[in-house]
C-alpha cells in the first residue's frame, strides 16, 4: 500500500517536473533526504526512484526556458573540482567495488547542489526548498520525539535503514542541522497555525535528539542552544524555553541516558574514543604514504588497510568529517573540502553584513543566520561522526551561492537607480567614490 501511494506521489511530481523543472529539484531533495522508499516495504525499496527523478529533472531543465548558466563563483568552482577529484581518486581506490557505490551517491549530491545554485533563483524557490528539507528530516524527528515521550525514553531513536541517517548518531545530527531551518520557517511564515505547528515539531525533535542517546548529538545540541541564545533578539525567551525543556527532559529520561552521556567526561578512557584516534592515525598515514590520493570512499575502514597502520586492532570508521575526507580522498580532497567550508562561511558572513539593514532582504539575513547555526551543528557533531558527504552541506553551499547572486544583483541595480536619480552616471559615481 505504501509503495503504491509513494509511486503515485512520485508520478504526480514527475508530471509537474516536465512543466516546472524546479519541482524536480524539490522531489529530488525529498527523496535524497527522507529516503521515503526505505519506509515502504515492497518493490519501491529496490526501485531507482532517485535516479529516475534526477534524469527527468535534468532533462526538463535542459529543454525548459530556465536559466542554464550557473553562478561562476568559488562555490561552483570548488563543487566541480571536488567532483572531478573524487572521480580521479576513485580509480586509485583500494577496493573499487567497495568505493564506487559510495561515489555514486556522492556525485548525485554534488550534482543536486550545482542544480540548486542554478535554479533557486528567488525567494519562493528557496523557501520551498527549505520546507522540503525540514519536512524530510523532521518526519523522523517528530516521529522519534513522540516515540521517546510514549516509551519514557527507554529505547533508542534510529533512522531509516540503508540511508545516511540510519543510525542514532547521524539521525540526531541531521535533525539538529535542520532545527535552525525550521526556526527560519517559523520566523518567515505568515500563518499563525503554521508557526505553532513548527514550534511543536521543534519541541518533539528536541526529544528525538535526546532519545537517540547520541553523545555527539548532545554536544551539537549544546553548541546550537548556546549560540542561538547568544544571538537571539529576545534574550529572555530562548533561555526560558530551553530551561523548561531541559528540566522536563532531566526528570523524564531514565538513568541509562545520563550514564551514557556521562561517559563524555571520561572519553579518553573509552574504547570507542581510542578507536577513533586509531582511525585518524590510519587516515593520516594512508594519505601521507599515497600522496596525493586517498583510499577511496570508506577505504581506510577496510581490514587490509586498517591492519597495516594499526595491526591487531578492530577496524573503526573515521568518526570525524575532516579525517574521513583525508582518508577517503587524500590531502587534495581535504584541501578542496576545507576550502569549500571556508567559502561557505565567508558567503554567510558577507550575506549577513550586506543584508543587515535592508528590509527587502530580511529573509536572507534570517536564513543566513540560521544556516550558520546549521554549520555549527554540523561542525561540532561532525567532529565525532563520519558524515562528511551529507547532502545538507552541499545544499547549504548552493543556497549561499544563489543568495549572493540575488542580493548582489539587486543591490547593484538599486545603486544604479539611486545614481541615475541624482543625475550622475554610474561611472562618474564610481570615480568619485575612488
Amino acid at each position, binding site marked *: 500500500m505504501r509503495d503504491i501511494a509513494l509511486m503515485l*506521489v512520485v508520478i504526480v511530481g514527475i508530471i*509537474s517536473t516536465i512543466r*516546472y523543472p524546479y519541482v524536480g529539484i524539490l522531489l529530488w531533495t525529498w527523496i535524497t533526504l527522507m529516503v521515503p522508499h526505505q*519506509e515502504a516495504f515492497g518493490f519501491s525499496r529496490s526501485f531507482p526512484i532517485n535516479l529516475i527523478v534526477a534524469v527527468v529533472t535534468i532533462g526538463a531543465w535542459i529543454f525548459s526556458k530556465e536559466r542554464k548558466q550557473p553562478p561562476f563563483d568559488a562555490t561552483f568552482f570548488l563543487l566541480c573540482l571536488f567532483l572531478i577529484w573524487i572521480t580521479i581518486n576513485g580509480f586509485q581506490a583500494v577496493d573499487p567495488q567497495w568505493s564506487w557505490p559510495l561515489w555514486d551517491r556522492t556525485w548525485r549530491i554534488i550534482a543536486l547542489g550545482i542544480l540548486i545554485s542554478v535554479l533557486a533563483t528567488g*525567494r519562493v524557490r528557496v523557501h520551498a526548498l527549505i*520546507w522540503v528539507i525540514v*519536512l524530510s528530516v523532521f*518526519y523522523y524527528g517528530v516521529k522519534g520525539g513522540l516515540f521517546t515521550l510514549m516509551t519514557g525514553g527507554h529505547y533508542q531513536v534510529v533512522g531509516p535503514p540503508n540511508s545516511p541517517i540510519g543510525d542514532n548518531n547521524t539521525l540526531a545530527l541531521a535533525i539538529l542541522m535542520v532545527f535552525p531551518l525550521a526556526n527560519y520557517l517559523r520566523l*518567515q511564515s505568515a500563518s499563525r497555525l503554521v508557526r505553532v505547528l513548527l514550534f511543536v515539531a521543534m519541541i518533539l525533535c528536541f526529544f528525538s535528539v535526546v532519545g537517540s542517546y547520541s553523545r555527539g548529538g548532545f554536544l551539537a545540541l549544546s553548541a546550537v542552544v548556546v549560540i542561538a541564545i547568544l544571538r537571539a533578539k529576545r534574550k529572555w525567551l530562548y533561555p526560558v524555553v530551553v530551561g523548561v525543556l531541559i528540566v522536563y527532559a532531566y526528570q523524564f529520561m531514565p538513568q541509562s541516558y545520563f550514564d551514557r552521556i556521562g561517559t563524555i567526561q571520561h572519553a579518553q578512557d573509552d574504547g570507542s574514543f581510542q578507536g577513533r584516534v586509531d582511525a585518524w592515525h590510519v587516515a593520516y598515514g594512508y594519505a601521507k604514504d599515497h600522496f596525493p590520493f586517498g583510499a577511496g570512499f570508506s577505504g581506510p575502514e577496510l581490514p587490509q588497510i586498517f591492519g597495516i597502520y594499526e595491526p591487531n586492532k578492530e577496524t573503526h570508521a573515521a568518526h570525524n568529517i575532516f579525517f574521513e575526507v583525508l582518508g577517503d580522498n587524500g590531502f587534495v580532497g581535504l584541501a578542496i573540502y576545507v576550502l569549500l567550508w571556508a567559502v561557505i562561511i565567508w558567503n554567510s558572513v558577507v550575506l549577513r553584513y550586506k543584508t543587515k539593514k535592508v528590509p*527587502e532582504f530580511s529573509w536572507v539575513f534570517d536564513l543566513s543566520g540560521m544556516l550558520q547555526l546549521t554549520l555549527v551543528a554540523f561542525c561540532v557533531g561532525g567532529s565525532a561522526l563520519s558524515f562528511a558527504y551529507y547532502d545538507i552541506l552541499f545544499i547549504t553551499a548552493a543556497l549561499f551561492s544563489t543568495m549572493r547572486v540575488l542580493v548582489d544583483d539587486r543591490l547593484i541595480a538599486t545603486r544604479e537607480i539611486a545614481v541615475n536619480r541624482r543625475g550622475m552616471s554610474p561611472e562618474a559615481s564610481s570615480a568619485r567614490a575612488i
Partner: protein
Amino acid sequence: MNSFFYGLGLIAILVIIHWYVANDGMSQNDGSVGFLAMKPVKPRDIPTGSSSAKKSFRRKQ
C-alpha cells in the same frame, strides 16, 4: 501510527509542491498564496523608521 505518519509525509510533499507551483510557477512570485504563505517583504525604497527619514526620502525623490 507509522502508516499515518507516512501518509502525512506524502501529503506534506504534495502540499509543498502545490504551494510552489501556485506561487512561483504561476508567475505571482511573492509567496503570499496558500497555507505555507510567507510574510511579505518591505520594499527597499520605502523607508521605515523616523519621520525625518521619510521626509529625506521624499526630498530625494
